[in-house]
């Protein structure tokens, strides 16, 4: 009981932010989880009400609140649509940290986060070994989407059509880089992110090709770690800070103008979330994190806004039909929507067509997909329907996590549609 009191006291720290929610309920209009379940505890207003009541000790069962708190994709749709400007993502992430401190991290998560993710060398080794083993057991599910299925892994992955781990991760081809500024006079640090490294190395290759083509110098240091968002979303702030520190160390000696990533989630995490989670750190470290945040940019935004690639007003008609899915972390958190679409129009083998609800969450939500697969799937199926409805032959996005989800959803609903990163389509338009 005293523990619950302590939990309540900690949650009271969020009271000033939570009180801004006037319970208008407008979050119901945009929440993808609520659209599936239509239950008040699944929408932001309900979650905030429950957290407030827990903080004010009106609710006894913290486990129930925690369970409901976790039924959220952290897609940020509600925050982007909130009339009162409530900092919903900050509240939810901090609440998850507070509740996890109270309940403790599950054994599995402890093993994965503290034992594996915060030890990048071990993490790399393990995924390399897994990549070798999965080969003989996994069979191709859909060639277009690049997915596989594996009956043996069903206890772990369910009926998912997953993106197999690559046999040759990105870092094997590019262990490190430090190339000089070319004709652009610019130099970027490149943060490929875990999923690109281990599943979609070709996205990393496309990024390098594009940056080199435009004469942008690249700093790619060894020792990069996960951006940390999986740990934070599970409430493990300690591992999050360990990973942040590893990354700051990796990049601190580089002389670069921007840090770019091909992953919407990594971009938003480095740019917005890192700085919010630092407590009691020394000012020099805070300054380093803040400097890096200022420099961080989605790679498509960098190419259009900084490098200044000129774009045709309309895409060429009659090519292979390509559409674009807005990753939440790019569209809702950072407001980047025009630049990826602009890059797609540069490739005249393709005709760009806008799908319905392009900026609606695909339902992946990182570990949400693991713990609430049925919900994740029904949200994703709506996305797959929208992709098909526009007649797309290729669906692109700017987030490798969304690519995994799109692949699974399209592959399971019949396949035949390619899933690519925007950079791949743009890189394809560049003559070597």
């Amino acid at each position: 009981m005293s523990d619950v009191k302590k939990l309540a006291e900690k949650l009271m720290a969020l009271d000033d932010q939570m009180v801004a929610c006037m319970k208008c309920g407008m979050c119901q209009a945009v929440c993808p989880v609520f659209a599936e379940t239509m239950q008040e505890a699944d929408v932001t207003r309900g979650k905030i009400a429950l957290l407030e009541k827990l903080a004010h000790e009106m609710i006894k069962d913290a486990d129930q609140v925690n369970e409901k708190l976790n039924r959220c994709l952290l897609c940020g749709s509600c925050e982007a649509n909130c009339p009162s400007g409530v900092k919903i993502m900050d509240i939810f992430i901090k609440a998850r940290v507070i509740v996890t401190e109270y309940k403790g991290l599950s054994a599995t998560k402890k093993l994965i986060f503290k034992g594996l993710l915060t030890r990048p060398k071990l993490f790399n080794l393990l995924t390399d070994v897994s990549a070798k083993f999965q080969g003989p057991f996994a069979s191709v599910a859909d060639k277009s989407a690049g997915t596989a299925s594996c009956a043996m892994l069903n206890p772990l992955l369910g009926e998912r059509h997953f993106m197999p781990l690559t046999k040759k991760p990105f870092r094997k081809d590019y262990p490190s880089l430090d190339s000089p500024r070319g004709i652009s006079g610019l130099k970027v640090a490149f943060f490929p992110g875990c999923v690109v490294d281990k599943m979609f190395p070709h996205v990393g290759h496309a990024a390098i090709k594009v940056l080199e083509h435009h004469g942008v110098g690249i700093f790619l240091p060894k020792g990069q770690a996960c951006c940390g968002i999986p740990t934070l979303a599970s409430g493990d702030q300690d591992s999050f800070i360990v990973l942040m520190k590893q990354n700051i160390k990796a990049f601190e000696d580089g002389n670069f103008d921007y840090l770019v990533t091909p992953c919407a989630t990594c971009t938003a995490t480095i740019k917005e979330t890192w700085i919010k989670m630092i407590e009691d750190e020394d000012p020099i470290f805070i300054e380093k994190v803040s400097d890096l945040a200022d420099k961080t940019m989605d790679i498509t935004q960098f190419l259009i806004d900084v490098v200044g690639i000129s774009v045709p007003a309309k895409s060429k008609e009659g090519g292979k039909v390509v559409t674009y899915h807005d990753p939440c972390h790019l569209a809702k958190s950072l407001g980047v929507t025009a630049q990826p679409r602009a890059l797609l129009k540069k490739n005249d083998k393709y005709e760009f067509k806008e799908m319905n609800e392009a900026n609606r969450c695909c339902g992946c939500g990182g570990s949400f997909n693991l713990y609430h697969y049925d919900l994740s799937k029904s949200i994703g199926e709506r996305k797959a329907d929208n992709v098909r409805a526009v007649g797309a032959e290729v669906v692109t996005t700017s987030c490798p996590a969304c690519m995994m989800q799109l692949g699974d959803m399209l592959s399971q609903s019949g396949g035949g549609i390619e899933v690519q990163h925007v950079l791949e389509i743009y890189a394809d338009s560049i003559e070597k």
Partner: protein
Amino acid sequence: MGAEKLIKDFEAIVGSGGVLSSESDRHAYSYDSAVLDPALPAFVVKPNNTEQLGPITKLCNQHGLPLTVRGAGTNLSGGTIPHPGGIVVLTNGLNKIIEINEEDLYAVVEPGVVTAQFAAEVAKRGLFYPPDPGSQAVSTLGGNVAENAGGLRGLKYGVTKDYVMGMDFFDVNGDLIKSGSRTVKCVTGYNLAGLMVASEGTLGVFSNIIFKLVPPPKAQKAMMAVFDNIDKASETVAAIIANHIVPCTLELLDHVTIKYVEAFTKAGLPTEAQAILLIEVDGHPAEVADDAQKIVDICNKIGATSVKAAETAEEREALWFARRNALPALARARPTTVLEDATVPRSQIPAMIRGLNKIADKYKLSIGTFGHAGDGNLHPTILCDNRDKQEFHRVEEAVNEIFDVALSLKGTLSGEHGIGMAKSKWMIKETNQATLDYSLRMKKAIDPKGILNPGKIIEAS
């Protein structure tokens, strides 16, 4: 009877997944959008079809169990806050549009259909459902009828009641009651559908609703007039109507609102202005052009410092941006936003605004006022922090006085938000004891055990 047995009985009607009874679920349905204390229901029942509403109501009546129907829970007067220990009947799953009749211009819907989704479906068929409450993106049509919801188009197109042609609802015995028809004219018996409008869930449980549809206007034109004096803005409102021009929308933003909107949105509003009128006319293109010109002339004659008409769709959109941001901008200023809807005859708007400003001074509160000037429906919005007991006490006193002023100007307690729990105690001020007695007798006859949304409208505690 134990709660568990009762839950089983309800599960027998709606299935095992249809009853939510965990501590957290009960708390999740203990509030709505009103700034009022929440109340915990015993559990929540979610029917899968409208037929199940009858047995649910009957069972509640048998056990004398209070029942509060809830759609999206956006009510601003506490109408969807349950009775403590009662049950919540959740209708947001009853969301089928049963029929949209393009020949006879009507639609039949279930009560849980979301207003904006309905309006969009109607628009797809080239027709128009005008009521547009501010919460339309999430509010349900059943709730709109129960509260007689209004919106920005009330002046020309009327409010929800003007579109209800008929309705089926369940009485406390679980019997289906039918009223109204699919015809424009219908005088078959008492206007029971009319009785259900604004009844706030206290007289029956809605099943299907028949709505009137209209053809959409062929053209529209929006304009903004800026004033250095709020009386001039109010005179302009009266003059436009007196000249027999009925804009579809005629909105007012006062000085406090303009300041906040500009501070938060940087939309380029004139912060020195004492008032802005946002006006839109619609209809036949020739009539629209004619009315728009007359309005510009009236604004100039009365002394607007500037009048700007939108020439393109983008300019029109930019004008409405300011109006749409009025509430969000005010809501961001302080933690708690007490949004009232005191309504006065149009000619009394200047007096009402003067009264509001005096009240703000007297109670040392920040009140931003915006709203539907064309129909006299103002939204004085008090910015406060309800955790500050002293301040919130002043807010309560101020709200009391706002209603006194509105009533003294021959106005009303509520233009579109309903009475609910929030304003029940003031009912007698606007009406009289006989009116309350008449209403209570009617309620008693229809609902002898008082199970239908008790504590609302006429049952001030």
